[in-house]
């Protein structure tokens, strides 16, 4: 017999787990997932538009564990609606959680006064709001050249929402965080199918956990979090990639020693020195690599797909730009392959962690027109013209250069 993990069958009712799967049986499938050009050929044979309970159709790359990305159309607004937000899990045992009995255990060897929080307790802390991009570390992995193993995401493993919750700092202070705490670890209710599979537990440096904007969020765009985005509460780590944004948080541990385990020591690492990153996770660095931290500067054209047909004449191209939380300062567009750059018009500023809309009006000719985009942040960092290859396909911020066909 396979050593199935019994934790959740004992912790939650088996009937609830089966009921959830029953709900998933009622998937409405829509044909024709519009995949990003450049993903591995095999993706086309398994991807389809599919509807999880409570969601609009997303591009399903895998149903178990569920990994669904947003089609380009869902990223045309600076706030991504909850039912259009992408879904990403590592492990397939995902319990439905009863908000009435839900608790977060707060402790660790760096906490002098361990405590337990109910959802109501969480709501008693000062409520803080932040608009922040949640982007999977491996967003655009499918575009890596050469291809690398993993979930072969196109452009849509990202979204941006207004998150509301309690500061992790306030929670840790109540738990008597000690000065020698170096990391804070978070575990979610989701877990592995087989006992021997390492549970997905992640830590962040103490300085990031204590940041004013690092939250345990119980609201997403004014609503409770969707089940598949971490109900009842998830970690929000503004500026940092999604791997740290633990869903269904059930424990917070202040640690005086670095967290171990596969998901920290082997996964989610980037080679040292390859990316222009400011935020460091020093307690987890090795001589050769470092945990992924903040997002690199990036932009996405959302108004048109590569090869889209346009009418010759005035055409408005628009999209989004974002970075690791320093704020976007400009978005430059080139229609001649990168020789001449012109500033795009920036849209509403929802804060330094948010998606920043931009738009640019060009005059399309008959035949092929090209549109290349490069965002710059307030540190002066921009996007890259050539892929910075790394074995896990992280931090792909290659400038897009799409064709618009005037006809």
């Amino acid at each position: 017999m396979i050593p199935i993990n019994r934790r959740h069958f004992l912790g939650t009712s088996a009937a609830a787990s089966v009921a959830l799967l029953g709900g998933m049986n009622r998937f409405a499938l829509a044909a024709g997932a519009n995949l990003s050009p450049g993903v591995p050929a095999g993706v086309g044979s398994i991807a389809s538009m599919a509807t999880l309970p409570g969601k609009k159709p997303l591009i399903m790359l895998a149903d178990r564990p569920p990994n669904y990305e947003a089609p380009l159309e869902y990223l045309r607004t600076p706030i991504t609606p909850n039912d259009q937000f992408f879904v990403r899990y590592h492990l397939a045992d995902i319990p439905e959680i009863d908000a009435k009995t839900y608790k977060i255990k707060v402790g660790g060897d760096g906490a002098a006064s361990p405590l337990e929080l109910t959802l109501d307790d969480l709501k008693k802390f000062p409520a803080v709001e932040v608009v922040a991009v949640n982007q999977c570390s491996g967003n655009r992995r499918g575009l890596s050249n050469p291809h690398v193993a993993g979930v072969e995401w196109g452009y849509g493993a990202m979204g941006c929402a207004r998150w509301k919750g309690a500061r992790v700092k306030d929670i840790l202070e109540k738990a008597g965080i000690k000065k020698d705490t170096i990391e804070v670890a978070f575990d979610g209710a989701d877990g592995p199918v087989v006992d021997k599979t390492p549970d997905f537990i992640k830590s962040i440096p103490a300085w990031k956990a204590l940041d004013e904007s690092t939250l345990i969020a119980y609201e997403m765009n004014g609503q409770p979090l969707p089940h598949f985005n971490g109900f009842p509460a998830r970690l929000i780590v503004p500026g940092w990639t999604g791997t740290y944004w633990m869903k269904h948080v059930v424990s917070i541990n202040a640690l005086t020693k670095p967290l171990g385990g596969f998901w920290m020591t082997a996964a989610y690492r980037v080679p040292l020195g390859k990316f222009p990153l400011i935020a460091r996770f020093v307690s987890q660095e090795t001589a050769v690599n470092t945990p992924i931290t903040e997002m690199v500067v990036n932009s996405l054209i959302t108004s048109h797909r590569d090869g889209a047909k346009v009418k010759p004449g005035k055409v408005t191209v628009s999209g989004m730009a974002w970075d690791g939380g320093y704020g976007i300062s400009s978005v430059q567009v080139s229609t001649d392959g990168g020789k001449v750059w012109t500033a795009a018009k920036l849209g509403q500023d929802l804060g330094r962690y948010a998606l920043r809309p931009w738009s640019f009006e060009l005059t399309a000719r008959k035949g092929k027109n090209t549109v290349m985009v490069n965002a710059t942040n307030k540190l002066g960092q921009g996007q890259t013209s050539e892929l910075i290859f790394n074995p896990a396909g992280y931090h792909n911020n290659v400038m897009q250069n799409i064709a618009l066909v005037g006809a």
Partner: protein
Amino acid sequence: MNKLIFAILAALIAAPAAADDKPVALKKAPGMEAVEANCQACHSLAYIPMNSPFLKPAAWDAEVGKMIKVMGAPIDDADAKKITDYLKANYGG
């Protein structure tokens, strides 16, 4: 209690095929049964075609090795060989 848990486990393992109206159809070739019997206890078979056709033989060995050694998949040596041979022959690059 064990019987109940096993029944639920069986239902869960059977679920992936039912959870999606369009189950993942792998290429019919020797070793496919070993893949179906071992891999989908923990994850959809979609991960295989999704990661093709680009992984070299050593990379498929590494993936299956990772599933057994790191992820704790209870796969015996005979099945592991069938699985890697199948993946290299049908989903290699």
